[in-house]
Structure formats: structure tokens, C-alpha cells
């Protein structure tokens, strides 16, 4: 190509979108980054042209056209119902937003690559799920709820799009829960509780991906990944009990029905934005196979699950005292000197 890539990032004010835009600042192969979101990113980013728009509106098609976008990175899928004002808004945003975005992208002849952020939640949870889930494992949408269901539905639209536009490289990245010094997810909220509730008699395996590795996976996918679906995760697993011990916390084993009740209380007081269906996670856990991402585009996590948890423990505590809103806290910590230049183990 004679000129650099022109990238559209949806959800640019969310953690992943913002970190990606930040990363593309120094990437010479990238000519322009257009970011779309409902609120402005609170960190100034070179190269980024921010447009305040809803991906569900027709404006998006005009942006793709007029900015001559060739790569769409769709990160605007969220697992936090409360940040959007409820579950139905979340679904509207996740599913309908994806549908509208793809409709716009389908018309744009210049689009050559679409990358979608999905989640390993699409595999569901249960006693019959394989211990290590590969990308080709059938997901039965009937068993999915909430975030996992949104991701699965959004994925079907992306796959339909891939069938209609055979010239476009469509990449779906299914990430495990992110963890690290600056990111805030359901998992980091959960592991930050003073006393961590667990299900009595169960000890699920945790497999997490470090925030830096997740960003790296998206950056690589932007350049290299061939069309396909990839699991993105750190290597290795740890038992939940071990993770709790590593963090120096105390686990609180509860009978499953009691855990359900406690979960809804915690959610109501805002301590954890943990969808109730995810309680199943505390029983079965979820571990995925990441061989394909490694073989097809050379993704390799620098942090194992255990190292990621250790990094979360060692570099996060300083930020937890702040009382600012979560996203501002994330971003301020992003700008902390040392957060970016930290040496990797």
C-alpha cells in the first residue's frame, strides 16, 4: 500500500479503544485514526480525530466514507449494564450498534479489514463444556445470557458481513477477562473486594489476559491477522483460591443460593457490576485454547495468568484509593509516568 492505514475505532473512550488509539500514535504505518464514541476521551491523543456520534446513527456511514476508512476496529461492546443505564440499553448498544455499524461498513468499498472485540463469554458455562475450549466449539445461544449472548449475537452479524463482503478481512478476537494495573473490568472489581465471595466446594480455574497483551493482540490483528476467529488469553491457569491467596485476600465460601443473594446485594450497592449469570463462573470457570492466534499471527502473551495477577497486585494498589469515577481513574493512571514504560518481566 502506498499510504498508511486509516482506522476507525468505535468506543474510543472505553478502555480498549483508548489504549489502542494511544498505541497507534507512534505507528508509522497508520496514517489516521478516527475515534467515535458518545463521550470524549479524556486523554489527548495525537493523530486521533474524535467524532461524537452514536454508532447506531447514519452519521457513521458518512464518517466511514468521508474519512476514507480502510480498517474498522469495533470495540464498542460492553459488559457493564450500569454504565449504560440498564441491561436493555446495553443490549441495544452491543447488538444493534454492531448491526448498524456493519451495515455502514458494507457500503464502503474502501473498507478492507474489520476487527471486532468479542469475548470468551460466547462459549457459555456449564458442566459439559470442555476444559479447554477451542474457537470451533459450538456455542448454543439458548444457554447464553447477558454479555455472552450479546457477543454471540453481534458475532453472527459480523460473520454474515464476512459472507457478503468476501474481499474484507474479518477478524473476531474473543478475549478472556482483562486484568492489569490500569484496566477496570468485572473481574478486577471482583478481585478487589475486601472479602472475595466464592462458591462453597468449587474452585474454578481462572485464565486471564494482561491488558498490555490484549492491546498487543488488537494491534497485531490490525496489521497481520488473517480472516478468522481467535481466542486471546494469557497462558496458564490458576485456581481462584490461589488467586485470592496471591492477592492476600480472604475468600468467603458461600452456598450457591446464598452467593446468588449476596451477588445481587453487591450489585445494588455498586460494589461489583457483576451480572448474576456470571455466578456460574464461580462454579465452572472457563479456559480457552489460544494456539490459533499464535500460529496465524504470532500473538504471544508476555504475561501468564499468574504474572498478570501478580502485576495487578503489585502495581494497582496505589490507584485504588482515589474517589474519582472509574474511567477517569483508569485514564489518570494511564498517564502516570512509569505505567507506560514499565519493564516487562
Amino acid at each position, binding site marked *: 500500500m502506498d499510504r498508511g492505514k486509516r482506522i476507525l475505532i468505535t468506543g474510543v473512550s472505553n478502555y480498549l479503544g483508548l489504549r489502542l488509539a494511544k498505541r497507534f500514535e507512534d505507528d508509522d504505518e497508520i496514517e489516521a485514526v478516527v475515534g467515535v464514541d458518545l463521550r470524549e476521551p479524556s486523554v489527548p491523543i495525537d493523530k486521533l480525530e474524535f467524532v461524537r456520534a452514536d454508532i447506531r446513527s447514519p452519521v457513521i456511514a458518512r464518517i466511514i466514507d468521508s474519512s476514507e476508512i480502510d480498517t474498522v476496529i469495533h470495540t464498542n461492546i460492553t459488559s457493564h449494564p450500569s454504565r449504560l443505564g440498564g441491561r436493555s440499553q446495553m443490549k441495544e448498544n452491543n447488538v444493534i450498534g454492531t448491526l448498524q455499524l456493519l451495515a455502514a461498513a458494507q457500503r464502503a468499498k474502501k473498507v478492507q479489514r474489520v476487527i471486532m472485540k468479542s469475548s470468551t463469554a460466547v462459549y457459555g458455562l*456449564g*458442566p*459439559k*463444556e*470442555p*476444559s*479447554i*475450549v*477451542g474457537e470451533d*466449539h459450538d456455542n448454543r445461544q439458548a444457554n447464553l445470557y447477558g454479555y455472552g449472548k450479546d457477543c454471540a449475537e453481534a458475532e453472527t452479524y459480523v460473520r454474515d458481513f464476512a459472507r457478503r463482503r468476501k474481499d474484507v478481512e474479518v477478524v473476531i478476537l474473543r478475549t478472556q477477562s482483562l486484568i492489569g494495573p490500569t484496566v477496570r473490568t468485572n473481574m478486577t472489581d471482583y478481585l478487589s473486594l475486601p472479602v472475595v465471595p466464592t*462458591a*462453597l*466446594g*468449587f*474452585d474454578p*480455574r481462572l*485464565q486471564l489476559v494482561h491488558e498490555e497483551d490484549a492491546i498487543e493482540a488488537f494491534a497485531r490483528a490490525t496489521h497481520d491477522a488473517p480472516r478468522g476467529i481467535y481466542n486471546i488469553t494469557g497462558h*496458564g*491457569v*490458576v*485456581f481462584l*483460591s*490461589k*488467586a485470592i*491467596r*496471591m492477592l492476600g485476600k480472604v475468600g468467603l465460601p458461600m452456598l450457591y443460593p446464598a452467593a446468588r443473594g449476596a451477588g445481587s446485594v453487591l450489585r445494588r450497592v455498586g460494589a461489583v457490576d457483576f451480572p448474576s449469570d456470571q455466578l456460574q463462573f464461580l*462454579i*465452572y470457570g472457563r*479456559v480457552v*485454547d489460544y494456539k490459533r492466534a499464535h500460529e496465524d499471527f504470532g500473538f504471544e502473551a508476555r504475561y501468564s495468568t499468574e504474572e498478570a495477577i501478580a502485576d495487578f497486585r503489585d502495581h494497582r494498589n496505589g490507584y485504588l484509593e482515589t474517589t474519582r469515577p472509574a474511567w477517569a481513574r483508569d485514564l489518570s493512571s494511564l498517564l502516570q509516568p512509569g505505567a507506560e514504560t514499565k519493564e516487562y518481566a
Partner: protein
Amino acid sequence: MHDAANNNVIRLDARREPRRCVATTTSGRPCRNNAVEGGEYCSVHRRPQAGTPEVSTAEPPPIAGKRMLDELVDNDAGSSAIDRLRAFMGRRLKGDYPIDEFGYDEELTREILMPLLRPLYERYFRVRTLGVGRIPNEGPALLVSNHSGTIPIDAVMMQYAVAAEHPAERVVRMVGADLVWTTPFVSHLARKTGNAVACDEDAFALLERDQLVAVFPEGFKGVGKGWSERYRLQRFGRGGFIEVALRARVPIIPVAIVGAEEAFPMVGNARTLASLLRFPYFPITPTFPLLGPLGLIPLPSRWVIEFGEPIAMDQYPDDAADDKMFVFDLTDSIRDRIQQMVYKGLKYRGGTFL
């Protein structure tokens, strides 16, 4: 593999007074296997001859449970047993121990749990294990076993048999049905002892990682069969395990376990109670639920576990797994083979309890 002359077939006339192998097993007790004809050793401990390469005579590593004890009493390293024990406990408490992706915790399994099973295996059930040398020292293989005894204690005994008596002390990775994974504590323990979910993906993934995988294709039909059905193998699932072995091109080793039936003789099945509790069956044995929790203690039956000749899967064409008829036939022939091994094991065992 074995030829006709040195195969360790069980000779029926020698059953009452079999000529025992003179070797000592890795656990330090006399080998109970029959000696091969005209020799002093059984086929496991026989000195290797040309053409029988699969049995290693290398000095076997010390037996599982002893290892930690040896370490604890061995003061050469300059630290006392108490310090070592404290270090061990500290490591466990801090969570400083490795596990694999399936959650298998080797340290916990080999050093804590396996030694606990030893009295049960040696003294209570007096298990005699035959043909354990037919399991390769390394590389993947699929053990296919019969299943009985109301609670799957036969699986645990087989796992112990291989860990204790096999020259390479291999760990058997079993695949368990969903009831295992929905039961508190059991699921936890099953993960840590290296077991996985009973599905093709997991069996295949374990074989890919060169593990020794065990399947019990009878499933609940096997463990939950009534007393009148004892020693008779139930239908073998849908042949999924054969397909996995064919695709992974790993040998199948048939296994017959005799004795679990009498440990928990299931004389009745309380179906209503079972459906209320959402169990596949609710066993009634001579002692359970009559004696309450005491009824959960198994009866002291004598056990025989026999590992059969491996059946190579790479002799079949690549696409054999897609030929359903072939898969069914192969499934049936393996089932028949295990059935014959069960009958043979029954004759060999002699008295049920004494």
C-alpha cells in the same frame, strides 16, 4: 508387543497356586503377578529380551508417597524435617505450586492423596494388578475400562494402580460425566487430581499433550447397574472414544476391573428419590441407606485389575473415524474383549471376600 509364549495370560489350572513373580514392585512389596512360563519373573519384571522393548528395567523412581517422607527424613540437605514440612505447607498456603491447564496439581495428587489410597488398595481390597507393563512408559494411550460399583471407586483404584505399579508412575487422566462437575468438593478434587470433562474435545486435548487418558464408556449405565447385571458390560456409549483414538492415532488399552461390584452391591434403585435429587440413580445396597453413613463404607471385596494388550489405531486408514459402521464394529469388539477379560479375572480372583 508380547508374543504367545511370554504373554501373561492367566492359566486357569494355576489359579489356586499361581507361581508368583519373585521381583519386588516399585512400592517395595512382592510382585503378585504370575511368573511367565518357565521363568521366575512376570512379564512386567522380566529382564528385557530382544524384541520386547517396552518394559523398562531402569531403576524405577521412588514411589509416590515415599518421596516426600524420604525427603522429610533425609537430613543431608541441612534442614530438619519440620522445616521441610513447614516449607511444604507454606508453599501450599501461599498458592506457590504449579498446575496444568486442566487444573492437575501433581504435588497434591502424588504426595498427599495417592498415599492415602494405599491402605485401601493394598490391605482392604487387596488389589492384584496384571499387565500394567503393557502401558507405554511415555506417549499417549487411551485406557478403556468397564465401570461398576455404584460410586466410581473403581476409577480411583485404577488411577492408583498405574501410579503405584507402573515403572514410569504415570498419572491416569480420567474423563468424568457432568455429575462430577456439578457436585461440590468432588468437582474440585477431580480437577486437582487431573481429570477432565467427558467430551471428545477434552479427551483429544489430553491425548495431544501425550497423556494417558482413561474412559469408562458405560458411564452411569455401568456404575448404576443392578446386582443382577453384575459382571455384564452395558452398552458402550456412542463410540465417541473410538473416534477420538482413531483421530489421535493412539493405541487403545482395554482394562477389566473386577471387584467393584461386590464393594457396593446395588440390590435396588430408588427411582423416585433419584429423580427428586436429580441423580441418575439412587442406590440401595445391603448396608445403605439401612446403616446411614456407615453404609457408605465399601465391603472388603478382593479386586483384580487387568490391563490388556494395546490395540494399535494407526493400522486403520486415516478416515476410519468417519465410517460409522466401522466405528460401531470396533466398539463392539473392544467391549467383547473387556467382557472376556472380566470373566477371566473372575476365575483368577477365586474367593470374593476371602
